[in-house]
């Protein structure tokens, strides 16, 4: 890795009162890399992800996106940074009172300052990409969970993010709908998007991830290529976790 | 500033008005007891008619609630108090207030009960009927207890409105809290008795309002 990392997490800490969630997390994600994070619930993986756009305020440490430290700067800088860091949630969180198209154009118009035409053109491109251009005028409640999640991905992509964060994007989906979302993510990776994914889809990780990180108790226990982690995990905790989830 | 205190927070005048106002408060209490009981009872009857499968019961109940939700309670009160004597029916202020608020409050309580009864699922009816309970038994021992529990916050907040409403009785010279306060105001040319009345209402109703808010937030979560 010669180029500077697209996303860099430096000794990140997070605690709620006495309860330490993250202790000293360090991570570099290169441009175009897909880093996959696994770990038991409560290991802090979602919290770490949410610190990367400061939805969760870190207690210490730095997060650097494309060479810029997001921990410093004004409120306006923070909003501009969030435009550049796309986030996809477990619960989709589409705006229920807006059509699919308006869901995708809202931040483009109000936060980026694109004109309505530009925003619409861009939105239609992104909806095309996730295979839902024909649903542009539908309301979120009329879509399946998988379709809603793909719209949520389009909503984030439309803002031309440098990095995409996925917080358990398929955990709330019926099993038969998971594939369509993973296919979109795979396509994103193929087109060179930098991605940080928290998920339990081990098969997807094996196939698509460049690197897998195992977290437990607020620290990175082990990291390596998917074959190493899934094939021959070194740490005992990793072995225990994998034997539990892959059985 | 001093004149403001004198006009609104004159402790001397408040103390002088207090005995009279306490008798007014007692009347307000009696009035509340009467109109709350009447409203809760009347409302239940109207609500039961409203959820009945029988058309001839449902229709009059809908007309009843619509009319009394549209008429201001004060208009109803004046109509009964000043209008009925024209038809040869003499009526005491207390009876006029009780009758007017029975009609008005029944309509409002009925809406609350109705929402409660509808919130109890069909499954409860079916389960109870399948164990051999009659329609009436199912209603009284299975559905209504759940219905009331489901809408307890709304019943409570409606009761706050009912208590506030009793202040209208002052308009027909029933010597309840507000009437006695206003009388003391006109005798002393000082607004402090009205402030005292407001404080008494606050002491009684603020905790209930707070409780209602807490209740409703918990339900939303």
């Amino acid at each position: 890795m010669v180029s500077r990392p697209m996303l860099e997490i430096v000794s990140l800490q997070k605690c709620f009162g006495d309860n330490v969630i993250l202790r000293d997390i360090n991570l570099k994600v290169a441009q175009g890399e897909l880093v996959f994070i696994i770990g038991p619930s409560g290991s802090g993986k979602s919290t770490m992800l949410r610190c990367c756009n400061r939805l969760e305020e870190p207690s210490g440490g730095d997060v650097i996106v494309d060479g810029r430290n997001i921990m410093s700067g004004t409120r306006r800088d923070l909003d501009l940074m969030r435009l550049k860091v796309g986030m996809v949630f477990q619960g989709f969180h589409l705006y229920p009172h807006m059509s699919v198209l308006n869901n995708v154009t809202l931040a483009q118009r109000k936060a980026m300052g694109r004109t309505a035409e530009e925003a619409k053109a861009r939105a239609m491109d992104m909806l095309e990409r996730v295979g839902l251009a024909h649903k542009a005028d539908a309301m979120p409640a009329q879509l399946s969970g998988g379709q809603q999640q793909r719209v949520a991905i389009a909503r984030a992509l439309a803002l031309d993010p440098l990095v995409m964060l996925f917080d358990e994007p398929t955990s709330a989906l019926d099993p038969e709908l998971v594939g369509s979302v993973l296919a979109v993510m795979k396509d994103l990776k193929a087109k060179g998007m930098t991605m940080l994914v928290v998920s339990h889809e081990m098969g997807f990780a094996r196939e698509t991830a460049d690197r897998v990180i195992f977290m437990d108790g607020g620290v990175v226990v082990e990291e390596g290529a998917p074959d190493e982690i899934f094939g021959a995990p070194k740490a005992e905790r990793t072995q225990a976790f994998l034997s539990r989830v892959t059985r | 500033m001093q004149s403001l205190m004198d006009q609104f927070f004159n402790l001397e005048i408040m103390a002088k008005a207090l005995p009279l106002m306490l008798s007014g408060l007692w009347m307000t209490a009696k009035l509340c007891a009467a109109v709350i009981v009447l409203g809760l009872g009347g409302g239940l009857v109207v609500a039961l008619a409203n959820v009945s499968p029988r058309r001839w019961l449902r229709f009059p109940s809908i007309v009843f609630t619509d009319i009394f939700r549209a008429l201001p309670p004060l208009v109803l009160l004046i109509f009964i108090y000043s209008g009925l004597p024209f038809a040869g029916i003499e009526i005491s202020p207390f009876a006029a207030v009780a009758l007017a608020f029975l009609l008005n409050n029944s309509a409002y309580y009925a809406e609350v009960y109705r929402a409660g009864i509808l919130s109890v699922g069909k499954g409860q009816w079916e389960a109870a009927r399948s164990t051999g309970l009659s329609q009436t038994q199912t209603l009284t021992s299975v559905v209504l207890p759940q219905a009331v529990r489901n809408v307890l916050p709304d019943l409570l907040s409606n009761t706050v409105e009912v208590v506030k409403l009793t202040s209208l009785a002052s308009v027909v010279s029933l010597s309840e809290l507000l009437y006695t306060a206003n009388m003391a105001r006109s005798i002393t040319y000082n607004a402090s008795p009205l402030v005292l009345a407001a404080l008494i209402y606050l002491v009684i109703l603020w905790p209930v309002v707070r409780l209602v808010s807490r209740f409703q937030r918990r339900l939303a979560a």
Partner: protein
Amino acid sequence: MQNFLHTFFDPNVMARYLPDVLSGMMVAIWIGAAVVVAGVTAGLALACLRTYRIAICDVFIICFADIFRALPPLVLILLLYFGLPGVGVRLSGPVVLFVVLSLTLAAFAEEIFWAGFSSIEKGQWEAGISTGLGFGGTLVYVALPQAVRLAIPPLVNRVLAITKMTALGSVIGVLEILSAATTAQSFSGSATPLSLAAIAYLVLFLPLVFAARMFERRREQSLGR
């Protein structure tokens, strides 16, 4: 029966006092409309302010909402109308009525809108914020429209209950429907003007009652599904 009709629905008396009652209706409509605009706007503004969770503001807003929901409006009306002149502030009857009813509606509207904001998922805020809309942008474009939608059924009910209270104006000499009717009643020696007033209120408020019921039924249906 003939006698009853003559007492409560005397056509001559009706014709004689209809203009007074009609002008009373206009007064009620104007004051009612002003109260709705001022009360709902103020209530919405306070609820929005509360989403910022500024401790001192919250305490102030909660106390305001509690007090004006606990106090009977008639107490406030008498207090302002008869109390303020003692300190040199003389407000006319309509102004007192407008101020008291607006404050009361604002208190209730604030609680209703706030309940609306409270029932919006946290994820909606996070989605807005993570796309760079910022807190203000998310409030305006994401949270507010949803909160308003949730608030409409209970708000219509409350607006109905409070605009009806314009009848309280009769106590402080506002020439609205009820005072026109009671004046006419004592002049004519007939109960007919009171019937006329009741009819006038039904004409004004039955449409609102129907609207309120429609919103309620719609919500019941959407909850039932």
